[in-house]
């Protein structure tokens, strides 16, 4: 008999916070708003910790059914929550990082209008994200899935006065909807085949199946459709386009939603559904390919971006690609591992970037920064930690997780590995590029101009937001109307989360040190039960070594095929790639800063392609959006609706009117004509009746 953990409280707590702030926050002071938001978010975090503390005593998976939600014939869905190792990890990451970002936001958003609104949204996001994680059936997961999309929409469009922000929010939602479309279809397939959406029931039903190695069966279809959903949420090719735009949101949002938590939902979902994916090897391969491609592709774009947040956005996409790659090679625990470390360092990166932006008064263009190292040292150092972590240099967290992914990728196919290593190099390069451009060299910003402008903006801002009801929504997004000028370090409330995350970026990876480096890979072992419990019934004759995921023993850490030495060599190569990137960045941006322009000039076409993100947005617009609008407007609306159907109706109405006019002209007013008609009618009647009479005789 397991204790009742009241899992439902975890998501509900932030929802209460959101509701309180949403309904009454307008009348609260900022402190009160912050207190409510932090209180409920912190309570959820505390509860997560409390659960973690007694985790070992639980019978897993721990499922709690609250009540029934839907019921239609034999099909039913409950409000039910489940806890296992995987969701516990996610729970801790989300509540922990989420709480830190909440704290950070208290300082970051202090000057903004719509303070209560912001925290209400943020708490709402937590509610949906926790629902997503704790759901014990796909539909409830879908609730969270869509809900985080909503929260993301709201938060991206937080500065709704800017058209670009509003558009970005909409874009994010719609692109996610495309993914959700796949998710939904996958759900329908499950209902069709398993009659349920409950994880336990679905997985139990799936287990007897052997992997669909030949052809595409329904499991593959489900897996691919789920993948489509995951691609949407986790910004993978081809649905990644929304994430860079999403940087229009306030920076803490980017940190929380678009780096640490929401975007990783896709990875979580695939890992959660690993039972299905494992039986759909071709789908799994698609996952891996998409992940690999995305990782590389986004990294190349990241090289040429000048907006500090855009760089981080592409880097997020790239890192998510890694996680997908891990999932694709059935290294789910590695994927989750990277998810966790990524949450630390990428969250930190965004928060630090926010701090930088905060410091320079809203500027996001790295070409107008530089030399900030001295002025904002806390920010600089924490950011450096994060950069090292993301670049995969030991002993920082990113090193361990990335290394494990690359190693497992290599075991599947060397191509994944090669691309992964190149990506690691690129990552290191553009991240250090970012670091160097921002913190080293001379300050290139036009401080006075910026501040003058800023002050001005700030006044406008105050004029709007001083009215407590913050009706102004979000005036002057990044204009912080500080009374004092100059580049300045952020307040303590923002720095504390930075520091905590920096520490985590350092030590976060140590829970998963692989055996080759003398660790025990505890993380992998911890998650083991989740991923092992569903080993496919391997049919030796069907299983193909190169493509099928290695059976679960491999996740144990002891590698039967290759020894530790090989693994160490590969580790060395990837570290080398990271160092190479660091060196190149140093060369280009510290040693000889004029070089990048020359290179860009000499490779004009390529550079332009990269700088313009390969014109993918334009391509989509040209391929889908514009034709769709044109067809809808010209063909459907004007053409069919008005031109055909309505025209036919009006035409027949006109026709009736013309006919009516004709009939009317029978009425010439001339009596003799009338008599003529009567005579005709009479003659017709006579003839008809005589004919009838003769016929009946």
């Amino acid at each position, binding site marked *: 008999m397991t204790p009742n953990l009241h899992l439902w409280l975890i998501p509900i707590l932030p929802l209460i916070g959101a509701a309180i702030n949403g309904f009454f926050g307008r009348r609260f002071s900022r402190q009160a708003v912050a207190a409510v938001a932090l209180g409920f978010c912190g309570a959820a975090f505390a509860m997560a910790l409390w659960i973690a503390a007694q985790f070992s005593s639980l019978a897993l998976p721990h499922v709690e059914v609250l009540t029934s939600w839907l019921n239609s014939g034999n099909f039913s869905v409950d409000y039910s929550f489940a806890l296992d190792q995987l969701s516990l990890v996610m729970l801790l990451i989300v509540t922990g990082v989420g709480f830190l970002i909440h704290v950070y936001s208290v300082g970051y958003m202090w000057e903004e209008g719509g303070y209560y609104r912001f925290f209400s949204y943020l708490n709402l996001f937590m509610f949906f994200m926790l629902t997503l994680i704790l759901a014990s059936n796909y539909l409830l997961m879908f609730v969270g899935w869509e809900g985080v999309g909503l929260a993301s929409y709201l938060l991206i469009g937080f500065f709704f006065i800017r058209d670009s922000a509003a558009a970005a929010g909409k874009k994010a939602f719609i692109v996610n909807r495309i993914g959700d479309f796949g998710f939904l279809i996958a759900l329908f397939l499950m209902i069709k085949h398993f009659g349920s959406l409950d994880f336990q029931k679905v997985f139990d039903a799936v287990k007897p199946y052997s992997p669909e190695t030949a052809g595409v069966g329904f499991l593959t279809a489900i897996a691919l459709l789920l993948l489509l959903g995951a691609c949407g949420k986790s910004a993978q090719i081809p649905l990644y386009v929304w994430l860079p735009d999403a940087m229009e949101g306030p920076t803490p949002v980017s940190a929380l939603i678009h780096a640490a938590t929401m975007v990783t939902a896709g990875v979580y979902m695939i890992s959660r559904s690993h039972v299905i994916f494992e039986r759909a090897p071709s789908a799994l391969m698609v996952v891996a390919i998409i992940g690999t491609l995305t990782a590389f592709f986004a990294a190349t774009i990241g090289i040429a971006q000048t907006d500090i947040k855009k760089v981080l956005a592409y880097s997020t996409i790239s890192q998510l690609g890694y996680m997908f790659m891990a999932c694709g090679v059935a290294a789910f625990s590695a994927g989750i591992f990277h998810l966790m470390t990524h949450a630390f360092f990428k969250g930190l990166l965004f928060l630090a970037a926010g701090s930088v932006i905060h410091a320079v008064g809203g500027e996001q263009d790295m070409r107008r920064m530089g030399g900030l190292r001295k002025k904002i040292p806390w920010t600089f150092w924490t950011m450096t930690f994060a950069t090292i972590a993301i670049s995969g240099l030991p002993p920082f967290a990113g090193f361990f997780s990335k290394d494990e992914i690359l190693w497992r990728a290599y075991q599947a196919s060397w191509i994944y590995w090669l691309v992964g290593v190149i990506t690691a190099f690129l990552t290191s390069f553009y991240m250090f590029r970012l670091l160097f451009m921002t913190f080293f060299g001379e300050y290139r910003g036009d401080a006075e101009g910026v501040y003058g402008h800023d002050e001005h903006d700030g006044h406008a801002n105050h004029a709007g937001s001083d009215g407590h009801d913050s009706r102004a929504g979000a005036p002057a997004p990044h204009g912080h109307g500080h009374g004092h000028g100059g580049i300045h370090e952020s307040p303590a409330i923002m720095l504390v989360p930075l520091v905590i995350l920096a520490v985590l970026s350092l030590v976060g990876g140590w829970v998963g040190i692989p055996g080759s480096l003398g660790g025990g890979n505890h993380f992998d072992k911890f998650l083991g039960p989740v991923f092992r419990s569903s080993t496919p019934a391997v049919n030796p004759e069907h299983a193909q070594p190169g493509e099928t995921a290695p059976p679960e023993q491999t996740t144990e850490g002891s590698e039967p095929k290759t020894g530790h030495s090989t693994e160490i060599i590969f580790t060395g190569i990837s570290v080398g790639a990271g160092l190479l990137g660091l060196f190149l960045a140093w060369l280009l941006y510290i040693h000889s800063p004029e070089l990048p322009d020359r290179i860009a000039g000499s490779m004009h076409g390529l550079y332009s392609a990269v700088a313009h993100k390969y014109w993918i947005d334009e391509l989509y617009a040209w391929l889908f959006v514009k034709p769709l609008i044109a067809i809808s407007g010209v063909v459907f609306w004007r053409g069919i609706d008005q031109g055909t159907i309505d025209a036919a109706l009006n035409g027949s109405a006109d026709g009736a009117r013309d006919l009516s006019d004709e009939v009317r*002209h029978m009425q*010439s*007013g*001339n*009596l*003799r004509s009338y*008599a003529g008609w009567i005579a005709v009618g009479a003659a017709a009647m006579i003839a008809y009746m005589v004919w009838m009479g003769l016929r009946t005789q």
Partner: protein
Amino acid sequence: MVPLSYYLVLSGILFACGVVGFLIKRNIITIFMSIELMLNGVNLSFVAFAARWQQLSGQVFVFFVMVVAAAEAAVGLAIIIALFRTRETLNIDQVNLLKL
């Protein structure tokens, strides 16, 4: 002995003449006379059929038709006079204010 159908055909012809008159005459009074012609044709039929069935009611019917015709004539001519007063024409082709 004359077949009664001769009488009937004669009545039919008279009736048809009346109809034709109604159609082709322009003077309202003449048109009215055409109607009388039609009634006369019908009367002949009644009398002929009365002979065929040996039923005097046919002849009585004729009596009633004549009374009605007389009454109609009185009213009709009054109406025509009334029309002539307002329109000063008896040409039916010009009596066409009401149309369409």
